[in-house]
């Protein structure tokens, strides 16, 4: 997985045009956008990402781009590689062969891709405004989030904190933002430890 903050509108450029003390930095979050290149994540992860609808996505198309060397372009969950790598590898091998056979038989890529697994790697550009990003971090930095999207959101948070420390020092999982866990009976019970991790 590779995450790179490609482009954003620096807060200071906007503030310099506004009358002093007119707006708090938090009020400006919705007017600032952040664009990331996300590379080598699984389609399972990108499915979770696109559920955040106040965002823009440009994702590598499996209709236009033929998947090559699937075996080396998959994301394998650590739980699987630790316990049953042979089952995973076998399925990937079968999917790879089936996909290639379909393409070779003249089946359009958009149809051949139906045999590709969720583990298939993908690349995309995602743009969110600051307010949507804070919500995204609230949900996806949570210890209960799926490991890959959590890893992704933690890295995105690290990079926006570096770019705009004033705006994002309070961003993180919702327990960190709110001072209480909103997960109810699903709480991890480790709020103190989590909050400490995200404290700047």
């Amino acid at each position, binding site marked *: 997985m590779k995450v790179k903050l490609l482009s954003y509108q620096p807060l200071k*450029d906007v503030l310099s045009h506004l009358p002093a003390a007119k707006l708090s930095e938090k009020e400006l979050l919705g007017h600032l956008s952040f664009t990331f290149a996300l590379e080598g994540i699984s389609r399972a992860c990108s499915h979770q990402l696109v559920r955040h609808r106040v965002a823009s996505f*440009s994702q590598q198309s499996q209709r*236009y*781009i033929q998947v090559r060397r699937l075996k080396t372009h998959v994301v394998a969950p650590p739980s699987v590689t630790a316990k049953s790598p042979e089952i995973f590898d076998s399925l990937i091998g079968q999917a790879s062969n089936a996909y290639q056979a379909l393409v070779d038989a003249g089946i359009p890529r958009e149809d051949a891709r139906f045999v590709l697994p969720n583990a298939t790697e993908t690349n995309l550009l995602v743009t969110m405004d600051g307010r949507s990003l804070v919500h995204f971090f609230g949900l996806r930095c949570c210890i209960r989030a799926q490991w890959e999207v959590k890893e992704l959101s933690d890295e995105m948070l690290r990079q926006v904190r570096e770019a705009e420390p004033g705006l994002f020092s309070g961003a993180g999982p919702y327990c960190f933002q709110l001072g209480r866990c909103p997960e109810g009976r699903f709480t991890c019970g480790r709020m103190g430890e989590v909050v400490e991790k995200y404290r700047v």
Partner: protein
Amino acid sequence: MRLTLIAHTPSPEAMIAAAMLTTTSGVKPSTIYERLQANPEKINDIVSRLEVQHGSILEHNRLVWILEADEHLVLDTLLKNKFFSFTRLGSGMWLMSANLRAALEYSKEYGSDLGDSLLDSIGTVAPNLRCFSERKRT
């Protein structure tokens, strides 16, 4: 009504071209963006040839304006396009922002003073896109 562009994300046209190539090439988006920034001619070529069906490639940017207008115009704009954001700065003064897709669609659909001012902003930050919008109008 007075609209003043105060800020925008850097290199909007490079990002439009990068978004377009991300969907249709196997190259990683950060590599595409990096290569494009060193090749302005390629950016001009891609953006000026744009045949946008999926407007989403125009969304990886943001423009920020100060709008001097009454509440009627703000409400009217929001009713016409929900992708504009407003924050009240004071009497008759607003901070307004949107991406190029929203600005372009508004200016194409509504030939008002605001639409024309948005088109001027588009011409400032993405001149090839402005050419594209004019081509679509004719």
